[in-house]
């Protein structure tokens, strides 16, 4: 809402600087987002009058104008087409700061000789003065302006650009803002009651109004004017519209707009001769009802919308926009002025559905006061009389099915203390609220106050609202700053959060960079996860109106995001790229919110071994990835087994399922080359994916202590010949099962020359140790032999000599 400070002064005697007003309004909830000073640097610009116009001796398109400045006369060269003798104009003397009409830059006016004639200044256009972009002709001022006065004294103004919050439609008006300014600066608002003469037959005999949807239209007022002469508005009105960001059109439309800006009540003018049967109905639209709005667009209405209709058809979408059939034209002479209240939700829904946000709908949708239409209608009628020379039919039609009593709220000083933490006396609170025209009455009971809400404050309905009013006036800065002293809630932890944080930390310590990717993805990306490029995941949840095809589905997997991120970073040729993300995936559920599962996904890729002067780093392979999983699980206190897996995104044979307690909790393996290609991944990549919520359920927060053995350990290294089909885990289990075995370490795996076909050689270090005594060689020998016997018996394992 753009508000002219000059206009504000019509209602409240503002003496404070504009910046101070802006600050006060901002602090009180009406944020001033910008301030535009008009004429702040018009130091040498005066009101002049064109006395004479003569041709330029050396140029056809230029003329010499003699300008009377009251105290003196000057001659200037001027090229404007609209020079007229007798017009009042803005004259800039040499030295004035003007905007160059061509470059748009501010420049100082220099003495000039134009085509041989000295020009003693300049007659200004609106653009040169910086009030609009118009540069076609000079600015013509009204005749009433005093000759020789500083233009700044006449036209100078400050425009406050106020972001009005949606609870304060009353402040989408100059008078509304004036009330706030008055309250903030301890002044009174004065608004003159409109008055005009009525004549001729009564409006009731000329027009009929019926509200068929009283639930959506609590009040409808109308006046009727005849003998209207359509023409331009006077310049003061045009100027105020322009200052408020509205374009002047003609006197009738301008008056409706002016009163809307002044009071906040949207009005509509119907060409009464075109209103069929001279009858107005307010009713719900029919489903599919066609209607051509003022902007020349054919629209289809729905039964959720409200229309104004005459005896035959709809003539306006109520509260949003009028129609062409009853539009005011230059030939219009009789006008029915509408001033009504409509249901806020209906207007909001309708304007969204029609994609038609108008100045009217933006006000109605926030809920206007039902007391406003009559006041605004009278003001508009008065201005119509003054500006269009019309006559007013006797009376006003006021259909008011939704009349309400004024709101009363039982308030108390105790409530202020309770919500604000400020001690104010009943008197202080009453004085504060009265600044905003709340009527207050001490009930005599304790600290109680009976408050009557002024009719324009549709937003104030309860004690909390009144408390905010008190806070706004005393100022939020005057409220003390204290620390919470109330009791603490029951201790409660979010174990999943700690578990997630621990997981994040471990991954970071394992050298992984955390990433965060979008929760929405495309079917195309999800399909790429299968080597056959077909979607194989669980049913995804779709957005109703996707922002784009790339963001259509809630992700059912973290894989696409992390693989795409890997590709995006490949160009850096980082030796290894290790990424992980912890985030939610979304799984469809019948008639319910999707299941949100927290997943961990990590990827390792090695473009080339990192260059290092003492030998390059080891390349990434399956076992590097597995080491990460093992580290993660062991740090989390979880024991897992790794079984051969069949995840479709991973290459068969390099693909493991991570199993905890018989439950598969994740996978790990080499990204299938076809999947990698689909994502444009150039190098071998390894993927880890773990269901964090499953893992969480197996977490082991209880740590146990095993005493450290004080006795020395004995080391035995052996090389075993094992069938290729036998897994290392099978061998390890046998060895580890022996109570004296403290640790089993595989330190070499070999097959090839010197190893028979179908066999592999495992070099294993077994560390024997007892918690109770020093082991003798004989003891170790016995156990060692026992282990080898079992291995031989169960798997045909032999010692490699």
């Amino acid at each position, binding site marked *: 809402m753009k508000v002219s400070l000059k206009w504000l002064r019509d209602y409240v005697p503002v003496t404070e600087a504009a910046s101070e007003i802006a600050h006060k309004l901002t602090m009180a909830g009406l944020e001033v987002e910008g301030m535009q000073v008009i004429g702040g640097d018009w130091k040498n610009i005066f009101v002049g009058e064109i006395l004479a116009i003569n041709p330029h001796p050396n140029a056809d398109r230029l003329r010499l104008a003699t300008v009377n400045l009251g105290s003196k006369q000057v001659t200037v060269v001027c090229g404007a087409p609209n020079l007229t003798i007798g017009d009042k104009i803005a004259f800039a003397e040499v030295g004035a700061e003007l905007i160059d009409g061509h470059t748009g830059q501010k420049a100082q006016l220099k003495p000039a000789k134009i085509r041989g004639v000295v020009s003693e200044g300049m007659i200004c256009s609106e653009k040169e003065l910086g009030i609009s972009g118009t540069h076609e002709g000079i600015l013509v001022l009204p005749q009433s302006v005093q000759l020789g006065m500083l233009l700044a004294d006449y036209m100078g103004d400050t425009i406050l650009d106020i972001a009005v919050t949606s609870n304060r439609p009353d402040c989408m008006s100059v008078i509304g803002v004036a009330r706030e300014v008055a309250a903030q600066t301890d002044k009174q608002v004065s608004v003159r009651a409109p008055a005009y003469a009525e004549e001729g037959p009564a409006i009731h005999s000329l027009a009929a109004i019926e509200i068929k949807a009283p639930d959506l239209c609590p009040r409808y007022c109308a006046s009727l004017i005849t003998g209207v002469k359509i023409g331009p508005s006077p310049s003061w009105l045009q100027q105020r519209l322009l200052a408020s960001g509205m374009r002047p059109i003609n006197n009738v439309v301008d008056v409706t707009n002016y009163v809307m800006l002044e009071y906040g009540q949207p009005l509509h003018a119907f060409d009464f001769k075109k209103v069929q049967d001279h009858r107005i109905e307010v009713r719900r639209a029919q489903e599919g009802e066609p209607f051509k709005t003022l902007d020349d667009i054919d629209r289809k209405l729905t039964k959720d919308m409200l229309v104004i209709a005459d005896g035959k058809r709809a003539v306006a979408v109520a509260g949003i926009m009028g129609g062409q059939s009853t539009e005011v034209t230059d030939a219009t002479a009789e006008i029915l002025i509408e001033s009504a209240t409509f249901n806020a939700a209906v207007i909001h829904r309708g304007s969204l559905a029609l994609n038609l946000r108008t100045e009217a709908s933006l006000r109605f949708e926030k809920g206007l006061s039902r007391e406003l239409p009559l006041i605004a209608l009278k003001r508009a009628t008065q201005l119509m009389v003054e500006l269009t020379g019309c006559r007013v039919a006797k009376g006003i039609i006021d259909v008011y099915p939704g009349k309400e009593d004024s709101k009363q709220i039982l308030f108390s000083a105790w409530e202020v203390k309770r919500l604000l933490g400020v001690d104010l006396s009943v008197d202080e609170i009453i004085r504060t609220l009265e600044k905003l025209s709340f009527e207050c009455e001490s009930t005599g009971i304790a600290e109680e106050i009976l408050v009557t809400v002024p009719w324009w404050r549709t937003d104030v309905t309860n004690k909390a*609202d009144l408390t905010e009013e008190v806070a706004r006036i005393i100022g939020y800065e005057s409220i003390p700053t204290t620390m919470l002293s109330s009791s603490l809630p029951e201790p409660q932890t979010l174990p999943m959060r700690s578990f997630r944080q621990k997981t994040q930390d471990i991954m970071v310590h394992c050298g992984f960079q955390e990433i965060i990717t979008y929760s929405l993805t495309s079917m195309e990306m999800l399909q790429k996860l299968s080597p056959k490029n077909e979607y194989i995941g669980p049913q995804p949840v779709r957005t109703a109106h996707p922002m784009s095809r790339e963001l259509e589905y809630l992700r059912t997997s973290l894989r696409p995001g992390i693989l795409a991120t890997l590709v995006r970073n490949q160009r850096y040729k980082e030796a290894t790229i290790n990424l992980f993300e912890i985030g939610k995936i979304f799984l469809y559920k019948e008639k319910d919110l999707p299941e949100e599962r927290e997943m961990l996904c990590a990827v390792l890729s090695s473009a080339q071994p990192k260059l290092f002067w003492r030998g390059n780093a080891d390349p990434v392979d399956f076992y590097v990835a597995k080491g990460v999983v093992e580290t993660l699980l062991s740090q989390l206190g979880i024991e897992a087994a790794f079984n051969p897996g069949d995840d479709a995104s991973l290459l068969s044979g390099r693909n493991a399922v991570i199993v905890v307690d018989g439950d598969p909790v994740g996978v790990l393996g080499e990204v299938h080359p076809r999947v990698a290609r689909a994502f444009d991944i150039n190098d071998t990549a390894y993927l880890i994916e773990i269901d964090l919520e499953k893992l969480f359920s197996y977490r082991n927060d209880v740590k146990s202590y095993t005493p450290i053995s004080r006795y020395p350990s004995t080391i035995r290294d052996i090389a075993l010949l094992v069938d290729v089909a036998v897994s290392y885990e099978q061998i390890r289990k046998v060895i580890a099962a022996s109570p004296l075995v403290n640790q089993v370490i595989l330190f070499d795996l070999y097959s090839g020359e010197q190893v028979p076909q179908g066999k592999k050689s495992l070099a294993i270090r077994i560390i024997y140790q007892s918690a109770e005594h020093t082991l003798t060689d004989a003891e170790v020998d016995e156990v060692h032999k026992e282990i080898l016997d079992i291995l031989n018996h169960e798997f045909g394992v032999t010692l490699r000599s």
Partner: protein
Amino acid sequence: MLDKVEWLASQAFADLNKIANLKDLEDWRVRYLGRKSDFSQILRSLSALSPDERRVVGARANDLKVKLEETLTQKKSSLEDVVLSSSAEALDVTLPGRPVKAGRLHPVTQILNEVCDIFIGMGFQVAEGPQVEWEYYNFEALNMPADHAARDSFATLWMDYESEPGHRPMLLRTHTSPVQVRVMERTRPPIRIIVPGRVYRYEATDATHEWMFNQIEGLAIDTNITLADLKGTLYEFARSIFGKDRKVRFRCDYFPFVEPGVDMAIDCFMCAGAGCRLCGYTGWIEIMGAGMVHPDVLRRVGIDPDVYSGFAFGMGVERIPILRYGIDDIRLFFGNDLKFLQQF
């Protein structure tokens, strides 16, 4: 006997002087102080002497042995110094060390942790809730019924699910505030929670807009919680996260689910309040919206607003690193360029 002791000692000292390496020194030790050395034999044979002689010779021999051992220790340490300080083993300390692959948390995670820790320190507990929500929790329960004008400020991503023809009640939450309602429904005061999490808006992205971002929401409910407590809590937070010298401004603002409503801003650290591009020439940077929980919100979850009161606040998380590090494009956060992520 005494003469022999004196002679041995002088012999030993003389030999020691000539020794120039650790190997010779060890030979010397064995020869003069070892178990089979003359010295040891003399000390062992003292018992054969008369008591008087034993006392004199024994004392002198022991004395000399201690001196020899002391001199040996000194000689050994000085010979070792020579060896250790010889330059044969010197490394080129300017050669690069072996790179250790280090990971990092995403900057948004880092900030979330930091902010949570600040509030945990003030007695708040972390709560979480679903990202896909019912319209009821996202809007209605927060005083924004269908067709309420305030919904316009939340461009909503609706899910493709119709509970009845034409009615889509499922959405991606536009703020973390629905979690407030869920917590209040299942917990009785006192309540003190913070809610970190992702939120979504139907929005075209550019340098200052992103359709997905993170918020942190706070809620405290009890008897006698005041706007003054809200100011104190947020003031402490602002100073913890933006520095002890920050000025904080509280002004009236409107959010449908709080009353009175509050906007909190900090003074601009680029221009110190003078006005610049960062602060939109106001000198202040708005950080979060807050206020006292609206009585209707409390009533809806069965908390009596005449007995209990409380405050709520909410802020965008990415805004903090954007301001702190001068990040000029919000899209960098989820673009996941390592060159960006590895700066934090």
